């Protein structure tokens, strides 16, 4: 699905946990998430911690949309 979106010329970022799957399938911009059942917020942590993590990683994904990259890129996250 990522590829069909990009094929249409719309920049797209894939946020996912299994990075090797995403790179093999052919996503060009990837931002890692923390798990499969809860990609953007660990329920074992307080709500504020989950929010910080989610807001940070979504921010990284938004910035990734503006980046001019030459090849498949996995963007770095801080939290």
């Amino acid at each position: 699905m990522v590829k069909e979106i990009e094929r249409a010329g719309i920049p797209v970022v894939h946020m996912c946990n299994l990075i090797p799957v995403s790179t093999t399938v052919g996503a060009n911009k990837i931002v890692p998430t923390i798990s499969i059942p809860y990609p953007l917020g660990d329920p074992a942590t307080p709500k504020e911690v989950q929010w910080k993590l989610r807001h940070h990683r979504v921010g990284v994904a938004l910035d990734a949309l503006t980046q001019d990259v030459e090849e498949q890129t996995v963007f770095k996250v801080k939290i």
Partner: protein
Amino acid sequence: MKKAIHYINQFFAGIGGEDTADYEPEIREGLIGPALALNSMLDAEVTHTIICGDNFMGSNKDEAVKRILGFLEDKEFDIFVAGPAFQAGRYGVACGTICKAVKEKFNVPVITSMNEENPGVEMFKKDIYIFEGGKSAAKLREDVKVMSNFGNKILKGEKLGSADEEGYFPRGIRHQVWLDTEKTAAERGVEMLVKKLNNESFKTELPIPKLDRVPIAAPIKDLSKANIALVTTGGIVPIDNPDRIQSASATRWGKYDISNIERLEGGVYKTIHAGFDPAAADADPNVIVPVDSMKEYLKEGKIGKFHKYFYSTVGTGTTQAEAARMGKEIVEELLKDKVDGVIMTST
């Protein structure tokens, strides 16, 4: 008697489903689940079964591999088998990961099996023997049989056939072989060329794999003026699932208006994805579709517009062909609504 060790996931070990997918690696003496079938068909004694939760392997790969290689250090074994994993994506990737690591560290033959739609095939077929397996556990005995037959050939030191002859996915390794035909390569080549010129069908001896890569789209110049949409394969839908999207092997997708809400509330939205424990996402669907964060970025002015719909389907067991079709359908909507960029979340 030769010895074998078998890797399976938490589900096939009978430990549990998605609620136990974080199960930490463990080695047990003896036979559990599919190891019973393997032991009865393989000309080797399956001495141990290794169990690991699919999410544990997916999210803590290095740790999982390290611990499992640690288990194996003082064990004697002549062959290592994983799966079969059918169309279960995480299980397939786990089988591929551990087989590759075991082969590299201990230099023993490794065998696994999965369906051609399993992403593990594309990722690991170059590294290890992956036999083409069924779509679901209904094929368990047959898939184990195929792996055992090949394992027996290896254990006995018999001559191994090509990927096509044996039934595993081609590894892209070239071997020198003596053909039964007396024809030289030059003759065969010219024959193929003549057939091609006559528009007749011919079979190449060197298939070139086709990689479908998409050119990287031009980046967004000014995010503060851009319209951004969220798309997910995590199965987040309104609680009554109005489009009746399937929980696995989806062929349908939905779009849901989020223009008047600040976040996705549990009890109003939920996930229908059958491939993971839904508890966390049901309690707070924003962990999969981060509407709350996007609304905040809209308020801050980081983005110009947050597209009024999010798009959702389920990514487990969904074939690549169906995913591509749904992707194309969603793209039509995105283009029509002048969406400038997309964040797609997957589970």
